[in-house]
């Protein structure tokens, strides 16, 4: 217990921890403020105005397709070459249905809490996960590279206990920042919706869904923090974790992405990690294979799809944590410290 408290104290004393946390929170605040100022509340007058504009647009479309059909028929009867400008059957040239032209298009953007809040949890989790990763990596990495870890082991010779206690203190610290930040995030966007949009139509089901997404976001932050910690402990240097991740992202993911698309592999994104992170947050990501899409002049394109679910992501995240943390613990037990 005393070790745990000491490690918490060490974590909070570090300037890197403080600055990184502050930076992360500032970025989050900037997002909330940015959303606040780019959205507006819509009153009835504006709504009616937008409906009128949508109607106008529809009329325009009608006129245009009318003209086109006439031109098409004319060209048909005259027998002039149209080089594929018109379809064989001129009757397929129709205006879009009225409901396809939405009034929102003619409205300034507004923040609908029910519609949009879940999406905002993605940058929330991503920013804090990044902060957690670098704090986790530097917390143990600096200990290794400055000899602090060796000093500590002279006091506490049980290596696994020391490493796991450090991790527990780190996760506690990160959680102590993430949870209040999440509450503020909810409150912040509720306020944004109140003043710059609407908070209508919220049901207990929606709330529950938001809560669950929030919980998944927090889990993501903790997982990435653990991975950063474990990588830096494995490499015994902060730079090892950061370098490792840059290597994985640039070579592994960027390179792989280019390679896969050159080889025109179906559903290339299924091989890329960010897809799974996204799926974890949004519950499903539907990948589309546009090569298999047979678009016609008038028909809708229906590409083949593949769903990546949050369950699949959870398996990937668990395996990642188990393997990397396991390796770090094994190395801690076995390797000489000099």
């Amino acid at each position, binding site marked *: 217990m005393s070790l745990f408290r000491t*490690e918490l104290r060490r974590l909070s004393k570090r300037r890197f921890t403080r600055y990184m946390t502050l930076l992360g929170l500032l970025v989050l605040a900037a997002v909330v403020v940015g959303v606040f100022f780019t959205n507006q509340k819509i009153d009835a007058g504006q709504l009616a105005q937008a409906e009128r504009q949508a109607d106008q647009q529809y009329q325009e479309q009608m006129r245009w397709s009318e003209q086109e059909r006439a031109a098409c028929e004319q060209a048909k009867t005259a027998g002039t070459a149209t080089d594929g400008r018109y379809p064989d059957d001129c009757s397929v040239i129709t205006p879009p249905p009225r409901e396809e032209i939405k009034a929102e298009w003619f409205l300034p953007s507004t923040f609908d809490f029910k519609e949009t809040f879940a999406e905002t949890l993605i940058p929330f989790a991503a920013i804090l996960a990044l902060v957690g990763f670098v704090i986790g990596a530097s917390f143990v990495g600096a200990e290794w590279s400055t000899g602090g870890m*060796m000093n500590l082991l002279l*006091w506490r010779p049980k290596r696994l206990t020391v490493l796991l206690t450090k991790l527990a203190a780190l996760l506690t610290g990160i959680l102590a920042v993430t949870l209040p930040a999440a509450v503020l995030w909810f409150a912040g966007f509720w306020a944004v919706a109140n003043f710059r949009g609407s908070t209508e139509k919220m049901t207990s089901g929606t709330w529950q869904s938001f809560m669950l997404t929030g919980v998944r976001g927090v889990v993501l932050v903790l997982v990435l923090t653990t991975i950063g910690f474990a990588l830096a402990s494995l490499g015994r240097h902060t730079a090892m974790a950061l370098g490792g991740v840059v290597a994985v992202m640039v070579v592994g993911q960027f390179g792989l992405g280019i390679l896969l698309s050159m080889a025109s592999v179906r559903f290339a994104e299924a091989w890329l990690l960010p897809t799974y992170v996204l799926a974890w947050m949004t519950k499903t990501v539907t990948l589309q294979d546009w090569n298999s899409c047979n678009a016609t002049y008038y028909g809708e394109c229906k590409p083949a799809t593949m769903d990546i679910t949050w369950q699949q992501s959870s398996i990937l995240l668990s395996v990642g944590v188990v393997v990397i943390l396991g390796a770090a613990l094994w190395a801690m037990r*076995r390797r000489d410290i000099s």
Partner: protein
Amino acid sequence: MPAVLEIEGLRKTYKSRRRGTRNALDGFDMRVDAGQVHGFLGPNGSGKTTTLRTLLGLIRPDGGRMALLGHEVPDALPTVAGQVGAIVESPQFFPHFTARDTLSLLAGAGEVPAVRVDEVLELVGLRDRSGERVKTYSLGMKQRLAVASALLKNPKLLILDEPANGLDPGGIREMRTLMRTLAESGMTVVLSSHILGEIQLICDSVTIISLGRRVAFGPVDEVLAQHSSGAVRIRLEAVSDLPVATEALTQAGIRVTGHPDHLMLAGVDKPASVTRLLAEKNLYVSELAPIAVDLESVFLELTATAPVPGQHRQVDESMKVGGTGQPGPAGGGWGA
């Protein structure tokens, strides 16, 4: 006296894919009794730091047994760690913390009361600078901080790997006094050092290591006596009698080196026999002094690391006991 530190047949092999294996410790033995200040000597790369690291559980030995305060280590390390204060090879600290924070965090991890932090800062002379970041410390100040961290637990056994590194002469003397005081209060101190004059001044006993094996051990005066070569310096009442005396002594089988005002004799078992021999020739001795060897000379002889003019000795060229290592070059720094 009970042994506070015991090592028997300790082996450590460093394996490297590129450079093969290196036996850093090759059946090393060591024993330190309670209440002593014990010097641990050896040339660079002889295995001192490796021994201390192994003892403290930082590296895994390949063979042998070790005990600290009567407990077998590394198994019993969690039990004894609270009573063993150690610094290993100029320890580093997190550079952005102050000395006080550094010590206070260690005290927290080791469940040592916070007042102890101020006590040790006072002891090592860092009281007034304890609020500054370690990054801004000089080498000697870091060394003092390291000693402070080792003293923090108020240990029964204090292990210091080259604590004099970077200390100023005043600091070295203070360290010497500190160690004596600690030993008098019942603490056992093990001290590795290169400053042999220092060791000779403060240590009760020594262990000398060369290429991972023990080459000498025991109380300092015994080690010195075992390796004194029976050198004696004599002066006669009349300087003019020196040539006669040289002749008489040489005939008696004693090696004599002449000097303008005295003679140096080597291979003398009993100084009394010299007096008798010269008295029979009516030569009267005005001074007869057995020459004390110093630890440095013994060290250089035992480890075969005395410098030879025109040669550059490489780090691993030292005495190998029980092996085929080169014998020590004669002509070390004998004499006063």
